[in-house]
């Protein structure tokens, strides 16, 4: 025991010999030896008037708690870094194919950009030619459809007392004209205005 304490005193004075690593192991592993070392240290500090005005007995514990946090954080970072780091890529794919991959990405982006840009700038508001032709035909057919019986006037306004008037919505000729009108406007208009006549008619029907 005395010999061990004498070794501690010797170590504290920064002397070392071949047994020093083993002696240090002993100090690191023995709290009582550490307390003794601190007291030996304190004796010298008092003698040299180097003792702080107030001793904080928990100072080294506070430092070591922070160090433990550092160590813990570092250990957490290590596996995460290993997980996050990409798998090592072969030299060939890294060195030679890198420019090609860059070119491929650039080309893809260019194609997508051109494809998106064209309809917005060139064909904006212009209906497809095929659809226009089909619609024209449909409208023509509807407009020229003959109704059995006598010709029906376009306006079927019925005089009624007062200022209000009625439309004979049962009239097939009027229905056909109205349909053609609606189809024409709905298909040709890209704007909200194209929907307005339909909305008006729907409103009118509801009122009737």
């Amino acid at each position, binding site marked *: 025991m005395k010999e061990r304490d004498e070794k501690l005193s010797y170590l504290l004075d920064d002397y070392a010999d071949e047994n020093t690593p083993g002696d*240090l192991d002993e100090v690191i592993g023995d709290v009582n030896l550490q307390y003794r070392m601190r007291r030996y240290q304190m004796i010298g500090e008092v003698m040299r008037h180097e003792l*702080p005005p107030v001793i904080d007995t928990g100072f080294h514990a506070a430092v070591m708690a922070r160090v*433990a946090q550092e160590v813990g954080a570092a250990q957490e970072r290590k596996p995460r870094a290993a997980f996050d780091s990409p798998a090592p890529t072969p030299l060939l794919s890294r060195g030679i194919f890198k420019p090609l991959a860059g070119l491929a990405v650039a080309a893809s982006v260019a194609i997508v950009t051109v494809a998106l840009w064209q309809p917005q700038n060139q064909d904006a508001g212009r209906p497809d030619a095929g659809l226009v032709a089909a619609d024209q035909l449909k409208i023509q057919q509807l407009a020229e459809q003959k109704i059995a019986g006598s010709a029906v006037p376009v306006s079927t306004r019925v005089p009624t007392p007062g200022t209000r008037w009625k439309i004979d919505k049962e009239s097939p000729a009027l229905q056909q004209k109205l349909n053609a009108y609606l189809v024409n406007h709905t298909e040709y208009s890209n704007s909200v205005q194209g929907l307005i006549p339909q909305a008006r008619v729907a409103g009118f029907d509801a009122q009737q």
Partner: protein
Amino acid sequence: MGTNLPDAELVKRVQAGDSGAFDILVQKYQHKVINLVGRFVSDQAECQDIAQDAFVKAFRAIDKFRGDSQFYTWLYRIAANTAKNHLASRARKSPGYTVDVDDAEHFEGESGLKEYANPENLLLTEEIRATVFSAIENLPEDLKSAITLREIDGLSYEEIAEVMGCPIGTVRSRIFRARDVIDKELRPLLE
């Protein structure tokens, strides 16, 4: 003085991942670092915080310590820089008062009793001083001379042996016995 080989060995262990070795270095140098920081910052609570920061910074940077200087010299630089940086940042934060680094030693900043600077700790510190000086007074002359030449005059074992006219082994033994006697008085205070 010694060769600081134990410090070098402890540093090597810390670099290898043994934080227990760093604990020994903290215990060994805590009061020296606190005293050094105390030359820049007079407030004792701040002083303790800065000293803690300095040790943590030293731990973070210990892989960069190559042993070109002694560990304490390196630690001393870190502690001094930490204290200076603290003063600079405090001056930026509170325009109410500024402290030049050169004037820090004489600066009487905000003071006040914080957790650690409680009456019990103040009393304990005073008791430690009184006990140590009293124990030294009561030491036999050969032990008193050996410990005084070592701790106050900073002589090496070889130099003390020459002064006292005895073998180095005897010096080593006398210094230890002096410490052991004083420790017997000191121990009850710190338990």
